């Protein structure tokens, strides 16, 4: 099963390597990882998607908590958070096919961010399932390159992951 963790860390050099090093050395599998600063610039948030069972996710949480620069670890409750991932997809496209591809783009609520004589670049923000669907639909035209960012997640409603709450 996949678990999404929201981890607050001190925004200092070397912290990301401490976190990612821990995963490989303890044998945990990371599906995706995304880092960015938070509303407080001295604190960064790392959103991690882990593949494992309950034991693994508990261990991940506890081991992460042992790292000194880690401030807070929260395992997000399934169904109680919104997650999304960003993809940039460059697809082969001549003027003949442009119309067809633009139909797909419209249907999937993707966005065209660059047009060139032989290619189109799309930006797509959604979950993994929809991203896979879009990729499948674009495949027949020839995908030149896919760039995907790690999953971001935020809790639903007014719940937050902050340094003080538990």
């Amino acid at each position: 099963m996949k678990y999404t963790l929201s981890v607050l860390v001190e925004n200092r050099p070397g912290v990301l390597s401490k976190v990612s090093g821990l995963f490989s050395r303890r044998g945990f599998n990371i599906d995706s990882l995304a880092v960015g600063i938070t509303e407080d610039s001295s604190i960064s948030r790392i959103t991690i998607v882990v593949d494992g069972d309950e034991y693994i996710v508990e261990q991940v949480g506890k081991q992460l908590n042992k790292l000194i620069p880690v401030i807070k670890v929260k395992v997000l409750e399934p169904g109680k958070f919104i997650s999304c991932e960003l993809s940039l997809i460059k697809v082969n496209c001549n003027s003949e096919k442009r119309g067809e591809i633009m139909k797909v783009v419209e249907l999937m609520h993707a966005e065209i961010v660059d047009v060139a004589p032989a290619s189109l670049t799309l930006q797509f923000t959604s979950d993994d399932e929809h991203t896979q669907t879009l990729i499948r639909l674009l495949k027949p035209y020839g995908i030149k390159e896919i760039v995907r960012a790690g999953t971001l997640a935020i809790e639903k409603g007014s719940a937050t992951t902050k340094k003080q709450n538990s």
Partner: protein
Amino acid sequence: MISGAEIMVECLKNENVEVAFGYPGAAICPFLDYLYLSSIKDILVREEQNAAHEASGYARASGKPGICIATSGPGATNLITGIATAYMDSIPLIAITGQVNSELLGRDVFQEADITGACEPFTKHSYLVKDAADLPRIFKEAFHIATTGRPGPVLIDVPIDVQKSEIEKFIYPEKISIIGYKPRTVGHAMQIKKALSAIENAKRPIIVCGGGVVLSGARKELLAFAKNSGIPVVSTMMGIGVIPMDSKLYLGMIGMHGHENANRAMSEADLIVLCGARVGDRAVSAPKQVAEKATIVHIDIDPAEIGKNMTAHIPIVGDIRLVLRDFSEKVKNTVSKEWIQTVLTYKDEYIPSGTPDNSSGCIEPRSFIRSLSAMMEENAILTADVGQNQIWSARNFNVKEGRFFTSGGLGTMGYALPAAIGAKIAKPHRQVLCICGDGSFQMAMCELSTIRQNDVNIKIIVMQNDRLGMVKEIQDKIYGSRFAMTALNGNPDFVKLSQAYAIESALAKSNTQAEKLAEKMLNSNKPFILVCRVNPDTPTI
């Protein structure tokens, strides 16, 4: 104006550091120059790994963090095994390394090594200092992190230009504010209540005393808990020394090499109180089966240890000393007489192995360690190395009011000799005995000159069987007696070698002779090396 190097020494003084173990190099020279001018005693080791081991022995004996120092590059990388050894056994160390000029970091210059990166898995925390102004805060934090919660090594890597650079004024911070580090010390009241009621309802309870009890200084509390509850106690290797071996309800060491009666009692228990024990694989080989049969109460200051290796039915996160104090005050003695009778019968049935044979030309190490143990002062410190000598010591030496130091987690050969040096420097008035094999002795024997230079009055027993005995035993059992890499042919004459260092020494070939020589050794006020000839076929157990 004050330089980074001087600040580093001032920080150590503020932390009441008295001794530092180390080895010099260009990148640490500015700091060493100020250390030389200070009243802090510096001990020059002969190889950096031993600086960490000596600091570890010092820390364990003194209860204060041990300080080890090395230069950049190879000096720092040589420290790693020592740091990792301390990490596995939760020993508080402050490792200070010199680093190349910060502007040259990452260019692979002479003697550059990414030591904070390399030590990442083995340190509780590490710092690469970029600005001399950060040094006071970093040192303050480092000592705090190393010594609180679950103790461990902290590394401070200081580039030479940071050591040389100057700031206005030195102010040692009084407060610490690390937002992500607040170890929990007081156990949860509800959990404690739950545990106590489970203990009262148990029919065959047992207490497992781990290294956490030693680290937390909870000896008194554990003894009180055991006494007030009447529950029998077993120990892991790291927990040896908390309860004297001759106590009535102490059943011995558990685990792969443990006492048979202790393992038997534990396997029949219906409730196990794990006290500061991380359930390592050598202590409990089948944790799943154990947890299926018994209710597990697990007390540890490190929440990550609870449930890691064994399911915990009643977890308690907290300082073992505080939790056991609570336990001992509230627990009732409800243990059944039958259970006590059972474990005592098992204990009676246990017969220590090893009978001396004075005509064999060899000493019998297990029985010799038992005699030696009776000759030592009550509060003697024993350091045991790794291999057969470790198990012989752990099973047969009766630690009374003293201590037992060994590399339990990492199993680092060559630990006992430097650890003994550190222990003796911390406790100059206590007997310090080191037991090692001829393999492990040779991993650390360069430290004989450290002993000589500083007149460290430790007593060293070298069990010489010209083999790497424990591996040889495995080869005998599993690999058709094909002795790959286990014959120590080419061993030196250890007595002559000791003479070369002007350290008194003798060779024993029988238990009677060994006991006489041990008496002479213990009466001498100088270091002494007693070489004991051991039959290579003497088993570990």
